[in-house]
């Protein structure tokens, strides 16, 4: 209660008050925040809100998912493609606990979500009432902020605070748990005032020019500078500022899977993907560069490999909005705290215009090796079973880098990220930090709502698809135009790959059988097709893309194909293996 009152709002003229229920105030607030689409699932403890939304059908588009986990992933997909806050409704108890995976996923991938859960009547709190769970305590570790509302008067301020926290600074998921009495309670509603300041919360650190100067001096003195960029660039809407920095400084830049697309895949200074299954050059060169410029990325262990052997020779410049990221994994020599939308232009101004032809040529040499030894046979095989790589390659050709590619988790994810061509940011949606199987299908639904004018293709494995395939029902009911591309290797491929490489091929419980996916789609009135022959691939992809509405394409791919390059667990990025 105290904190909510401390929210500073710009003083406005005295407002007319009217009596409304907490539920109505909530919906009015959501509309005021620009919400159009809500992903949710009703239940007893959130019924007053669902009753209220019945009268708001014109203004609020509610998408009934088939499982609350699906609602969170859909909201994540929506947020990632649209740059807006994803909104979720769920009831108390089991409804709320089903949100946990999505919250954890959104938390680690910095995705702004506002989740509203219903809760039992305030007088029943702590009594093990029907469908009561301690949602606040369960979700504390996986939310940026959460709050329980027990009185309708608190709703407008709590919601304003929730949106402000979710979208500002380093974005993240927030949750508001509203007791049923508060949803029903009539109170004097004075209208909705957005939150712009919370005294205990500083979303953006102040930029220190001294650091910008030091960073620029270091960059200007470098012989072999190297940029690593992550999602911070697109979260800060700093794509243009970033591209200007890269082009003026002439520094080769490599991306984390969440940073993909901040500059187009084909940009001459884009040297590829970092990390465990990233490209050969950027991984090796991390241990060769003299200045490492990390922008909006957090040195995840899937990116760094063994930390004690990571870029030891380099001076590190780290640009991040979250002070807690500086020095967390890799020690920074020059920390540049701040929003990269603001810090990058300051830095660009101070860096000298340069090219690094010899240094860049080193990347190209590695690229050539990787292309010949690995990429070429994977993307253009002349015989044998279909590869995941060639499917993505053909998809790229047909979609020209303009489609949104949503991926699930596993080998197909790494292939989709490695080979997916992107002309812009916000065209790739994947579960990077948590690696959540089952993310792909619901996230694709949300992605389509977030980017209605783009083709949305969900690339999913046979394993992960079966984790949330019930969302086919959502696609059916709401006519969501999602192209579903199942890459079926009849295995839990990524785990099988590890078992092959590190456990002497002891394939322990990775052999997964599947239903007839095409028939399954058919039962949801979704068109579908199965491809087993190379000759049918392109035609079938075209058919999928041209089909009006959703389509499921199952492609049977090589059973025991591995994703390479690979930095094996416990190795340094310099020890990346091509086979």
């Amino acid at each position, binding site marked *: 209660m*105290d*904190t909510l009152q*401390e929210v*500073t709002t710009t003083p406005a003229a005295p407002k007319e008050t009217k009596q409304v229920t907490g539920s109505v105030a909530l919906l009015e607030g959501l509309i005021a925040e620009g919400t159009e689409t809500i992903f949710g699932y009703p239940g007893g403890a959130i019924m007053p809100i669902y009753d209220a939304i019945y009268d708001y059908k014109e203004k609020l588009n509610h998408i009934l998912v088939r499982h609350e986990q699906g609602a969170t992933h859909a909201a994540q997909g929506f947020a990632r493609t649209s740059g807006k806050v994803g909104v979720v409704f769920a009831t108390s108890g089991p409804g709320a606990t089903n949100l946990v995976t999505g919250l954890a996923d959104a938390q680690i991938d910095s995705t702004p979500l506002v989740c509203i859960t219903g809760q039992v009547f305030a007088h029943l709190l702590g009594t093990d009432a029907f469908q009561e769970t301690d949602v*606040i*305590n369960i979700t*504390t*570790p996986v939310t*940026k*902020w*959460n*709050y*329980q509302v027990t009185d309708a008067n608190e709703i407008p301020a709590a919601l304003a605070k929730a949106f402000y*926290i979710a979208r500002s600074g380093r974005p993240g998921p927030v949750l508001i748990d509203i007791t049923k009495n508060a949803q029903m309670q009539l109170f004097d509603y004075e209208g909705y005032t957005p939150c*712009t*300041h*919370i*005294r*205990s*919360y*500083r979303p953006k*650190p*102040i930029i*220190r020019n*001294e*650091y910008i100067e*030091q960073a620029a*001096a*270091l960059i200007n*003195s470098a012989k072999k500078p190297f940029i690593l960029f992550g999602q911070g660039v697109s979260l800060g809407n700093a794509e243009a500022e970033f591209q200007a920095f890269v082009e003026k400084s002439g520094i080769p830049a490599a991306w984390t899977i969440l940073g993909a697309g901040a500059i187009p895949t084909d940009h001459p200074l884009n040297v590829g993907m970092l990390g465990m299954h990233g490209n050969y050059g950027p991984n090796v060169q991390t241990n060769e560069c003299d200045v490492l410029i990390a922008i909006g990325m957090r040195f995840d262990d899937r990116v760094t490999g063994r930390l004690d052997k990571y*870029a*030891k020779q*380099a*001076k*590190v410049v780290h640009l991040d909005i*979250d*002070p*807690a990221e*500086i*020095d*967390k994994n*890799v*020690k*920074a*020599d*020059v*920390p540049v*705290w701040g929003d990269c939308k603001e810090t990058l232009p300051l830095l660009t101004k101070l860096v000298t215009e340069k090219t690094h032809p010899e240094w860049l040529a080193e990347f190209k040499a590695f690229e050539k090796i990787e292309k010949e030894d690995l990429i070429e046979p994977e993307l253009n095989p002349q015989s044998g079973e279909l590869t995941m790589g060639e499917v993505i390659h053909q998809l790229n050709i047909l979609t020209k880098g303009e489609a949104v590619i949503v991926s699930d988790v596993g080998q197909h994810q790494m292939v989709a990220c490695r080979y997916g061509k992107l002309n812009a940011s916000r065209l790739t949606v994947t579960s990077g930090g948590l690696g959540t199987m089952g993310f792909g299908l619901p996230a694709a639904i949300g992605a389509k709502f977030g980017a209605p004018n783009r083709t949305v293709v969900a690339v999913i494995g046979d394993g992960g698809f079966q984790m949330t395939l019930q969302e086919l029902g959502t696609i059916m009911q709401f006519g969501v135009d999602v192209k579903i591309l199942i890459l079926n290797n009849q295995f839990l491929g990524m785990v099988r790959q590890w078992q092959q490489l590190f456990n002497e091929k002891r394939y322990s419980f990775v052999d997964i059988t599947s239903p007839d996916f095409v028939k399954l789609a058919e039962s949801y009135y979704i068109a579908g097709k199965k491809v087993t022959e190379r000759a049918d691939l392109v035609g079938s992809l075209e058919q999928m893309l041209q089909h009006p509405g959703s389509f499921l394409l199952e492609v049977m791919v090589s059973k025991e194909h591995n994703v390479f390059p690979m930095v094996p667990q416990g190795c340094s990025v310099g020890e990346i293996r091509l086979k």
Partner: protein
Amino acid sequence: MSNSQDIDSANAKQEFTITVYTENQIGILNRIAIIFSRRKINIESLNVSPSEIEHIHRFNILITETEEVVRKLARQIEKQVEVLKVYFNTNEDIIWQELALYKVPTDTIQEKVLVERLLRENGARAVVIRKDYTVFETTGHRTETDKLIEVLQPYGLIEFVRSARVAIIKDSTGFNSKLREFERLDPGHDVIENEFLDKEKNVFTM
């Protein structure tokens, strides 16, 4: 990457007192506690109380860790929405006390020792004297309060309790002025401190 000499000194574990200023908000204790438990770091002592400023609470958290770990923890704590400011200090930087209460049978005490002398020697005072028992109180560092346990044990110490550490930072100008800064829409440098700038000025040399 540089400052290897820093890493060496930062690698030795020692006692750190973490001082946290927070909004008085339900749930914030849990948010702070899980930052420690998630990393399997034991909190040795924890004191939460209202501060000199209304609605603002002050946490004193005592842990034994390396400076590097403590610095990262402090940043994670400060990241919480309802946390205003976090400080961490070694024992040299603070003045701290713990309060201890000792319950002893009154008859043995009267029989066997001179209460007066006992109290004087240990800086303790009697809080309650009843026919059946007497309660002493003392404040001090752990070694001091421990010593009185030893002294009283032979006299049939019935019950003993010690409070969490409370600490005052020697080199602090207080939080009142900072708070005014926080309340501004655009807080100044004083509040948004950049510890790097202040502490690691010499890290980067051309």
